[in-house]
């Protein structure tokens, strides 16, 4: 069993490794083929041909953050949903009720966000 476990993850690691090697290798290989003669114009930031105005590290609307928060809430919720779903058959109906309470609370969170106009994209 221990072998199965470690072998599985060995393969996963190989996949990751391959995923890194391919771009790195291809880009390194490409270096021998492609030209390289930079000019200031080439290296300028693209802004539809105009000279760029100001920096681009601009502040963003707060809604992005709010979506991010909502995501965290529901993503975390799924952490609990998955084990529950797997073990559901052993837990019985009561677990369903409990999960219902849990989801309802999160649902209220959603309603809250809804009512507070978080979900309106302007």
């Amino acid at each position, binding site marked *: 069993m221990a072998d199965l476990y470690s072998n599985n993850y060995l393969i996963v690691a190989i996949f990751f490794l391959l995923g890194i090697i391919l771009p790195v290798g291809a880009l390194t290989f490409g270096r021998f083929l492609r030209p390289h003669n930079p000019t200031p114009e080439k290296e300028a930031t693209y802004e539809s041909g105009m000279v760029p105005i100001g920096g681009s590290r601009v502040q963003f609307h707060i809604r992005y953050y709010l979506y991010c928060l909502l995501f965290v809430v529901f*993503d975390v919720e799924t952490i609990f949903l998955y084990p529950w779903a797997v073990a559901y058959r052993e837990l019985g109906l009561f677990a369903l009720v409990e999960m219902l309470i849990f989801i309802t609370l999160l649902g209220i969170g959603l309603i809250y966000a809804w009512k507070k106009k978080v979900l309106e994209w302007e």
Partner: protein
Amino acid sequence: MGAYLAQPLTWSNALIFIISPIILLALVLGYVTYAIYAERKIQGWIQLRHGPNRLGPAGLLQTVADVLKLLIKEDVIPRLADKPLFILAPILAFVPSFAVLAVMPFTESIHFADLGVGVLYYIAVAGITTLGVMTAAWAGNNKYGIIGGMRAAAQMISYEIPLILSLVGVILMTGSLNLIEIVKKQEEMGFWFFIPQIVAFVIFIIASLAELVRTPFDLVEAEQELIASHMTEYSGFRMAFFMLAEYVYMFGMASITTVVFLGGWLPPFQFLSFIPGIVWFGLKFCAMIFFYMWLRATMPRLRADLLMQMGWKILLPLSLLNLFVTALLMEFL
């Protein structure tokens, strides 16, 4: 593969473990080359155009030529870019899209890692792609890029929730997170999960389109507004890797849809079981890919606000509801 996995690690086994992913990688690259070609051809066909037809018979070598062209293009890194992140971003985008394939069972015997938590692995790793997009957007230091990147991130995280939740229904019915178990459960039940989990299936398809940032959810690539979004500052082969990642991710998404909802390698009817599983898998997979391309050719792009609202106000509650209906039905049927 299962047999090798259970054995202690030997040099020959290790070699197999290394060679077989490389073969898969080669296959995937081949698939990408012709998926792009197919996409252009299919769009041409639907829109009554020809599509690529110059290079090679029926334009078959067009994509290959494109790749070669990209390879010899100059690699420009903008002066104001965050250089380490700029270089890292394409890799970050590509790695997860390929790594998700590690758990994909193509047939009962042709698969790689057989993780107990396959579904979770898929979701977890696939989530990293958002990071690639954001990194690219930030590193390029381009206004279009950052706006596009932010939008992409917002969209991807919004739709990740319904995507994940729609899978819970399947897991409830299977009682396992293992992808092979899920297929076996479908075999045992005699029908595929898209029938009992039709709602989840629809949600999953929609969400997966959004995750892939494909039409009708391709706001990120709205050229009219955002040039090329997070890829604006990228050129040459670096950009190619974003394209590659996109198509490989599509490969992964089509595969998981096939496995989870469409019965994987199972034949639609018992009497067709003499045809090998890999063929069935290939057929379903191709159907999914075709479906993606079909949509791209026919659907208009959604407006940003509607997109987000659909995710949160329709798909999310619906997927939660589905979850409970499933649980209740399991209890009382």
